[in-house]
């Protein structure tokens, strides 16, 4: 596996960004983060270029998914850890922020109580102590990163210390996710059970249903994606990135060269968990609900599929994959709901078998096929095409 992976990923380039690359990074970012919201605000709704608020909301959701996918890719494509627990970190960030949003409902809930609706329903008399700090936005924002990071640290420290790797690590992360989902499904665990948190009203004093708030959330999601992309780009291009890929391709050699590989792995694992938590926190106000089905192992595997489809070991691939698969999902679940699972399943199998490099490798593949065709084709053919 290691040899095939190394041959697929191009050698690490020393430069962070060339000028052309800067351009191709900044222009789409500006279009997405500035132009679309401006069009949404300024142009009349029936204008050809007017993106509806619904569309922006959808793109915002996809952007948070793309951050999740980038995390999976950094771990899997660059570090060789296939974690099936990333949706858990995503959902934990979502839950931490959801707690804040739930408290911000105030007395506007169904029961007109200071307590969140489900607590009234379950007969709570007072807010549990660990909920108190979540009245503060600052604390909630901290918890959004700290909770997933803490869990990742404890689990990662235990796992990497005893050198659990490969398939075993995948299965363990899956079991962790499964156990956590079971826990959150319980009413007496105190996080709303099955139904999770919903009916959010406002964030930072702004109405969540207003167009402005939705637009701002969308912009924040796109900026988060851009920022995370830059951060990961920098990480992978630095010496640190070389080391990550070295660990992926031959951990023992790196270990014997004197690097404490477990610490590197733990650092990336925790960093990715924290960033994924932020993505989850931005996801929740945009979809308006967080419940335990977001943290199941299936969701994690779906994120892995986005990466596999887009192309792992690249940073653009996961973003493409997240967009492509989710757009396909929105279309297919409406057009042919009973066939969607066949689509998804077929996509898994096809990508794994025929396109290990993902969508991002398609141009290169076509180029090589084209080159082969050109070299094999007789001269008369090429002249006939038009020289």
């Amino acid at each position, binding site marked *: *596996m290691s040899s*095939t992976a190394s041959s697929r990923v191009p050698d690490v380039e020393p430069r962070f960004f060339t000028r052309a690359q800067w351009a191709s990074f900044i222009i789409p970012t500006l279009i997405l983060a500035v132009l679309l919201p401006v069009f949404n605000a300024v142009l009349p709704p029936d204008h050809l270029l007017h993106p509806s608020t619904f569309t922006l909301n959808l793109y915002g959701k996809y952007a948070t998914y793309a951050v999740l996918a980038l995390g999976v890719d950094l771990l899997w494509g660059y570090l060789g850890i*296939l974690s099936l627990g990333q949706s858990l970190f995503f959902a934990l960030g979502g839950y931490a922020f959801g707690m804040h949003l739930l408290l911000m409902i105030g007395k506007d809930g169904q029961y007109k109580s200071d307590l969140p609706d489900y607590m009234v329903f379950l007969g709570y008399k007072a807010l549990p102590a660990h909920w108190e700090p979540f009245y503060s936005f600052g604390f909630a924002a901290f918890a959004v990163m700290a909770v997933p990071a803490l869990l990742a640290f404890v*689990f990662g420290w*235990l*796992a990497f*210390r*005893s*050198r*659990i790797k*490969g*398939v*075993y690590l*995948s*299965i*363990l992360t*899956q*079991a*962790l996710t*499964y*156990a956590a989902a*079971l*826990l959150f*499904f*319980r009413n007496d665990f105190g996080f709303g059970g099955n139904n999770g948190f919903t009916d959010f009203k406002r964030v930072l004093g702004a109405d969540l249903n207003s167009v402005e708030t939705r637009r701002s959330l969308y912009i924040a999601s796109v900026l988060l994606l851009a920022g995370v992309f830059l951060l990961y780009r920098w990480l992978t291009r630095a010496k640190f990135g070389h080391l990550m890929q070295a660990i992926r391709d031959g*951990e*023992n050699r790196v270990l014997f060269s004197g690097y404490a590989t477990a610490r590197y792995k733990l650092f990336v694992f925790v960093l990715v968990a924290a960033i994924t938590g932020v993505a989850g926190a931005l996801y929740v106000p945009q979809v308006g609900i967080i419940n335990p089905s977001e943290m199941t*192992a*299936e969701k994690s*595997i779906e994120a*892995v*599929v986005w990466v*596999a489809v887009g192309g792992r070991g690249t940073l653009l691939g996961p973003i493409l994959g997240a967009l492509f698969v989710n757009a396909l999902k929105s279309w297919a679940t409406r057009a042919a709901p*009973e*066939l969607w*699972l*066949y689509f*998804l*399943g*077929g*996509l*898994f*199998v096809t*990508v*794994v*078998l025929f396109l*290990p490099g993902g969508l991002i490798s398609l141009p290169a593949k076509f180029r090589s096929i084209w080159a082969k065709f050109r070299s094999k084709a007789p001269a008369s053919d090429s002249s006939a095409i038009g020289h």
Partner: protein
Amino acid sequence: MLRLLVRLSLSFSLLLAPSLMLRAASGPVSHSPARAQLIAALVAPPAEQAAAIRALVGVEDSAITPALNAWRAGELFLVTLGDGTRAPATLAPAPGAEGQLLALSVDSATPLLDSTSGKPLIFAPKQLKPLDTTAPLRRAIRDVLEVAGVSDPTPSVRRESVERLGQSRKAEHLPLLKARLVIEKVPVVRAALTDAIAFIQLADSDSKVRLAAIASLTEAHSLAAAARFKEQLAATPAPPADEAAAMVAALKKIEAHWQIVNFFGNLFRGLSAGSVLLLIALGLAITFGLMGVINMAHGELMVVGAYATFVVQNIFVSAFGLGSFGFNFYFIAALPVAFAAAAAVGLLMERGVIQFLYKRPLESLLATWGVSLALQQTFRLVFGPANVQINAPSWLQGSAAISDVLFAYNRLFVIGFAALVVLGVWLVLNRTSLGLLVRAVMQNRQMASCIGVKTTHVNMMTFGFGSGLAGLAGACLSQLGNVGPSMGQLHIIDAFMVVVSGGVGNILGTVAASLGIGTVDQLLQPVLGAVMGKILVLFAIILFLQWRPGGLFPTRNRSLD
């Protein structure tokens, strides 16, 4: 014309059928004294009816209960015969071709014949009004029915009604129960009778009788008695000191007994849950442990086995009818079918997808996950999204009790079956040439290939074998729980945990891990609840792997990585 024909043939058949029946029977009506008393009570004038019915208490006859039940349900009618006498009757449940109903006599359930013409009596629906009941009559009927079960021919009915009488705490039932105890032969019913008598005697006026009753109930470890003791100890006119002491001692003894019983019950359930896990994990131990393929569709292969059982069941139902003698054998026939069906799907998977991924285990996880999604959707499309109904054959229903510990037959079967399958797998792997080849290929694929082993062939067979085992697990699981499209997802993570904590590539480890995990899970459940127990076990496994990353029985290997 046609209508006339039909009417003619109908009246002919109506005439003929009862007369044939009557020839077969010994006489027109069986006039046992009990039945005569019943009929007399039913046609008695309203003022005397209640007393006449009460006189039926303790009379042994199988016709009394249905007749009184029909009366209560408003399905009993009074029919005036040709000679002016009146007879009680029920109506046949199925109407004739023109909706007419045949009157049935209450004592023999055969068609009621007119005393003068000898013809069967036929009525249109709603022509007759059901016999009325009044409050005193209903009370009388209830009293008769209450004790009627005690003399029922079926032991289980007798036992239930005896227990009910005991719970009623009415001293008036004592003579009946005592009389029954003298002639009762079935041990279970005898025990129930003794308990019921003692239970009623707890309220006896004689203190000696009460003490004896307490002792008797203690001996029987009766839970109902324990509740009653608690109630009496808490009551305001506290029982006399010696009785209170006896009750406290009895409570202790009964509770200690049930603690032991529950412990063994849980142990047994744990063993059977472990056996289920073992059945599921054995296939995985081969495909994942030996071959290194992470087959996320293993759960779905199991579901294939369960649905194969469902199909075989339906074939048997249509061939023999539900609950018939032949039907009971469907499960035996389903086992090989389930194995073959799952193995066939597994072989298809191996040829289509997995054979390209032997060197890329992480990617086999993704591809097989995709296959599992497609399979789940196929189940939904073919069998519908809801769970399907699987009826257990009669020999898997019920349970055996050894000193109050219940051993359900289906769970016993699973334990035995799992042991057989383990033995079979061990024999195949260690005592057949196929097993030798399998082990050779799994240890070193290239080396085996070099010395002439057809590795692709062996891979195929091994994967098919592991998949077939999943099918067997599914067939067994269909007897224990629901069968639905997403049933596989419930078990797959548990199964992987079993294989990982048992030590990959090791059958013995899988056995130990699955039985251990199943038992610990079941023992924790009553203390922590079903989900918390499961979560705790999962975390325990994660921690256990810190201590022994290779599992219980790690494979020794000199290679690094």
